[in-house]
């Protein structure tokens, strides 16, 4: 009967059964194709190219196809590589901890302390205002503020808190991390806020009815339920910080290095194979970090 019904709805009923099996498969493929093609051309192919080039050789001004391990040998043979990777992890870890603390607090305030929804939306939009201008501008605007004769130092001196300007405010690890936190906290706020909004208020009521204090319900109810959001935010922040090079360059006055700067230096000096090898190692490292993170929380299940 169903067959009959379908024949009625389908145009060209003569070979309908055959069309159905072929058509369904084909349509499935066609539907998947645009995304698949985009991914192949713009994600897979470039990565494959980078891996291939990482085995090539380079002269002063050109690169030539080859299969050699020189680039990797040099990378692993230099203690600078380890120092720089360590610095990259250090920036990622500190930035992560700070953005999580700030992001969680802001999201918590927005989700549970602000009662009206319109107020929530208004405050949330307020958080995004810094994003109306470019990354670089937000970053560079710190420089005159933190400089030796900058606003921060002159204010502190005026207040009599310090006699000498604080040198470590600018061109230091401090300024790099400050810029990172400023740039990337929102990436923590948004996913955490999002998961918090989905927590059923009934659960919090139940916690309170059972005698849980505010802190207890935060630790035992809200925190576990916000884990997917925290994890998504973590992935954002960690990958952004690990892949960055311009923030480190500007805010440290070129005095510090992370892996991104190593790569950008190589590229600017036409050492593409060596840059590619570093990029491959960075990619593997970041994937490993994300793999470990995903062990803790099954994002797909929780979404």
């Amino acid at each position, binding site marked *: 009967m169903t067959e009959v019904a379908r024949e009625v709805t389908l145009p060209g009923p003569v070979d309908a059964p055959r069309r159905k099996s072929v058509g369904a498969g084909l349509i499935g493929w066609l539907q998947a194709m645009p995304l698949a093609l985009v991914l192949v051309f713009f994600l897979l192919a470039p990565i494959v190219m980078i891996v291939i080039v990482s085995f090539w050789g380079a002269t002063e001004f050109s690169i030539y196809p080859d299969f050699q391990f020189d680039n990797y040998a040099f990378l692993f043979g230099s203690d600078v590589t380890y120092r720089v990777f360590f610095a990259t992890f250090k920036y990622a870890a500190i930035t992560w901890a700070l953005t999580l603390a700030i992001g969680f607090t802001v999201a918590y305030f927005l989700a549970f302390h602000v009662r009206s929804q319109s107020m929530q939306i208004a405050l949330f939009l307020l958080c995004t205002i810094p994003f109306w201008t470019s990354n670089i501008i937000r970053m560079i605007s710190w420089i*005159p503020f933190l400089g030796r004769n900058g606003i921060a130092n002159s204010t502190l001196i005026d207040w009599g808190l310090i006699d000498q300007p604080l040198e470590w405010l600018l061109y230091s690890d401090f300024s790099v991390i400050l810029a990172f936190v400023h740039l990337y906290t929102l990436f923590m706020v948004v996913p955490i806020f999002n998961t918090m909004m989905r927590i059923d208020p009934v659960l919090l009521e139940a916690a309170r009815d059972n005698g849980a204090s505010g802190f207890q319900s935060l630790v035992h109810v809200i925190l576990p339920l916000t884990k997917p959001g925290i994890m998504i935010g973590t992935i954002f922040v960690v990958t952004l910080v690990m892949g960055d090079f311009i923030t480190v360059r500007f805010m440290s006055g070129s005095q510090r290095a992370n892996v991104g700067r*190593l790569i950008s230096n190589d590229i600017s000096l036409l050492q593409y194979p060596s840059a590619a090898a570093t990029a491959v190692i960075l990619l593997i490292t970041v994937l490993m970090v994300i793999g470990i993170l995903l062990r803790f929380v099954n994002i797909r299940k929780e979404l």
Partner: protein
Amino acid sequence: MSKMRYSRRTILKGGVATAAATAFPAPMVWAQEIKDVTLRQFGTGVSNLNDVAQKVKEDLGFTLEMTALDSDSVTQRAATQPDSFDIADIEYWICKKVWPTGNLQAMDTSRIANYDKIVGIFRDGKLTPDSEIAQGTAPHTVGFIPEPGATEFADEETGWMTLIPTIYNADTLGIRPDLIGRPIDTWAELLNPEFKGKASILDISSIGIMDMAMVCEAMGEIQYGDKGNMTREEIDKTFAIFTEAKQNGQFRAFWKTFDESVNLMASGEVVIQSMWSPAITAVKSRGIPCVYQPLKEGYRSWGGGIGLSSSLSGIELDAAYEYINWYLSGWVGGYLMRQGYYSAVPETSKDFMSENEWGYWFEGKEATDIITSPTGDKLAEAGETRDGGSFEERMGAVACWNAVMDENQYMVRKWNEFIAA
């Protein structure tokens, strides 16, 4: 149109082309057609000026598109994207790197009207017949090739030029006299602990290493065979000294772009640093005292020139030659000399500068009136003299030229380590 092209070709065959080029700026037969030509030029910010493009449009009729990049990007582009430009405005040490790729074509010096007036530095390497040739990639060593198509450089003038010299200068350290308060006369002061946390050096390896070498030699720590072509041992020693200084907090920051160097100096973050002449000008024009300090060890010099893409031919090539002849004919030279650079053919620039300007910038005389930059900012009062004096005094005291070494790759890796240290 096609008829005109025919007539032009005929003229060319007749061998009148050279005469026509020399008679510049006489109106050309193909004046109408050349207006449709667009030449794409790229180079470092120093000479890629929109004012030049505008003047080209006015004087020659064709369009010049300018792209300004930093030194590293310029090298990268010239070496890897030959079809993206018609004219490369590059430095001589970049030429040494890029020429072997075959992306540039040699120029016939007989088509350059002012060739004979180009200063000796770019021809036989000597400013005056008895001057000594400095270390490094001296322009004349990479200025000529034996024949069109060759990838090796020739040792003497051959009639086939790689780059037509445009501007050059002698670089030294920039200082803030108001914040230092005592005379500075040697490169060694860059690492003087007195300026701890207030010094800077540029983060462009090929130039930075030369400044480092000048400092190490002035300190008496290292005696170089050739600063422009160091051995691995010399490179290691140089970086050891600077790495130690960096870890002791000698440097406030490193700079990579012109603007960064200006801001570091103007804000007082840094009081002594490697600097470029127009950056000094930019600091001064904000009313902040800044001196391009002549030092007893001499200058680190550099020279730039324009090279032609190997894909240029036909009317575009003719236009390019016209552009080069125009470039050397004085207006650009005058413009650049009023910024503190030198023109490859100084005598033609004289006509485009006032007597006061020529005296101040070129002859090292006291200014008789206010000196202003091409954009109108006041740079010097009457009675002031240029830092370092006259052309001969400055260019005659060059200790080394910007260079690219045989051990460049090793040096670059060391540079990366230095930044990460």
